[in-house]
């Protein structure tokens, strides 16, 4: 084989490998979704949304777990996102390039990919040990800690995208920075900030590890934030590893619900962002 052929062969071989890698990645996603749909639809019934989690061997639904997940995710976002948005505002508007802001940006990026089980241990030490028992509020706090880095990052990025001219015009009219931020920057960056919120909800609603030793689990419906609360991820964890067929079916149904919710959230975040970019472009 001459040199030219060898180069062409090498080129073809590596490009084929790269195509294969892409197909493998896509196949993984397809296999995952297929398993979820085929197993999950089998366990799906109206009972899922109307009945509580059953004792071993019994029949039941996931109502209390769905409710608990919704409550804790909502609380987590309500606590976490204002902090994230405000901190992002500080980095984008006040601190810009100070040494403190650089440090905060760095720490935030570390928190963004820090293992969530560590956050669970942190909240356990700080809240659960102090209170003396597991509780829904501890679970919500753990989720809030996970939501902060996501909202902070997107808020800062989106505020930086607002044209400087808009800020200057507001300042020229005599507005103080707080007024400019609230009346000009936030509205201009609104869909971007909402994207961040959606991504944060998607991130925390599937989290299991930080809830294991904060919210724990509860077989019954509970409205008490000061007591353990059922939640979908921990129920899936517990039921999937159990030997009971009914429980496993419920786990698959729960897994399907959670995945569809999160994928829908991520897709709408992306659509929102694409719309935003189109707006900018025109």
């Amino acid at each position, binding site marked *: 084989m001459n040199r030219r052929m060898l180069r062409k062969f090498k080129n073809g071989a590596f490009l084929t490998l790269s195509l294969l890698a892409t197909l493998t990645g896509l196949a993984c996603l397809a296999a995952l979704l297929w398993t979820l749909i085929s197993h999950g639809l089998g366990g799906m019934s109206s009972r899922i949304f109307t009945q509580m989690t059953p004792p071993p061997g019994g029949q039941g639904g996931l109502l209390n777990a769905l409710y608990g997940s919704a409550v804790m995710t909502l609380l987590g976002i309500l606590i976490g996102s204002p902090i994230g948005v405000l*901190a992002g505002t500080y980095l984008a508007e*006040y601190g810009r390039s100070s040494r403190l802001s650089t440090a905060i940006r760095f720490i935030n990026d570390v928190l963004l990919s820090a*293992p969530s089980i560590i956050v669970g241990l942190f909240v356990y030490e700080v809240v659960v040990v102090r209170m003396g028992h597991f509780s829904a509020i501890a679970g919500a706090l753990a989720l809030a800690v996970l939501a902060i880095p996501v909202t902070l990052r997107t808020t800062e990025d989106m505020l930086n995208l607002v044209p400087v001219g808009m800020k200057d015009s507001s300042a020229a009219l005599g507005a103080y920075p707080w007024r400019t931020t609230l009346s000009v920057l936030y509205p201009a960056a609104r869909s971007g900030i909402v994207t961040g919120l959606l991504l944060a909800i998607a991130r925390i609603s599937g989290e299991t590890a930080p809830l294991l030793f904060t919210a724990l689990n509860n077989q019954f419906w509970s409205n008490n934030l000061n007591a353990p609360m059922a939640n979908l991820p921990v129920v899936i964890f517990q039921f999937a590893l159990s030997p009971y067929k009914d429980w496993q079916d419920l786990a698959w149904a729960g897994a399907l619900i959670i995945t569809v919710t999160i994928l829908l959230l991520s897709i709408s975040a992306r659509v929102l962002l694409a719309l935003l970019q189109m707006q900018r472009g025109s």
Partner: protein
Amino acid sequence: MAIIEPGHAAKQLIYERIFRSATFTAAILVLLILGGVAASLLRGAWPALSHFGFSFVTREIWNPVTDQFGALAPIYGTVVTSLIAMLLAVPAGFGIALFLTELCPPLLKRPIGVAVELLAAVPSIIFGIWGLFVLAPVLQRHVQPWLIGSLGNAPAIGRLFKGPPYGIGILTAGVVLAIMVLPFIAATMRDVFDTVPPMLKESGYGLGATTWEVIWNVVVPHSRAGIVGGVMLGLGRALGETMAVTFVIGNAHRISSSLLAPGTTISSAIANEFTEAVGDLYTSSLIALGLLLFLITFTVIALAQAMLRRLERRVGAAV
């Protein structure tokens, strides 16, 4: 025009101070959270660390009955599963990034990119349940017997592939982790490859280089720091990943020479045992494991961020 009241400016200044300090407090809170995590883990881990001393990280024993705890088996499991994951995911992620930036027809670029990113959004517990019920049986029936038959008799690496095919174990956990970190590595590498100036690539093609030669000799050297950063970011994820591993690792506190045997990792040991741990020393030992994980992942992620940042600055300077 509105008439400005006498106290207007003073009032505005007060609002400004309030808003500014609110944003400042929130920003400081981010620092406090990280500090709080470190401090609370250290405090929780102290009883175990002071009791066992340095031998905590060098001993393999893990016996709740006699209150003897050592972290060597979980550390070994964490490192080995992550290494397997990186061995599989780095080449595959590189291939996907390459495909998306250089080969993909423009029409498919977005859909495939989004599909890869969606894989990253799937929560880890879903990978766990899928790994346990779908992947592990497949590996047990088709892949592991073949590994035992072929590589099991090879010199040197043979002992890594000995023993019965359990299905669950270190290898399976590594494969699940690989699938989980793949989208992160692929997406970071794609973004990095996109920063290579087209001019440089065109010069390569102009000299008659093939696509692969341009990639290997122009794109890769230009984005080296970013590639390493992306790989480290993936490694940070793999090291700390909990639920997916907990399902398929087998939770056995021992170091086995075979990759097919069950094992444990730091995060899966905590997830499995924490709520059932009785006794202060047991709980404290698990928190000490958490502290170790925190230190390891913090170092890896911080290095990754530092490298990605350096690249960003360089790109910023070039524009």
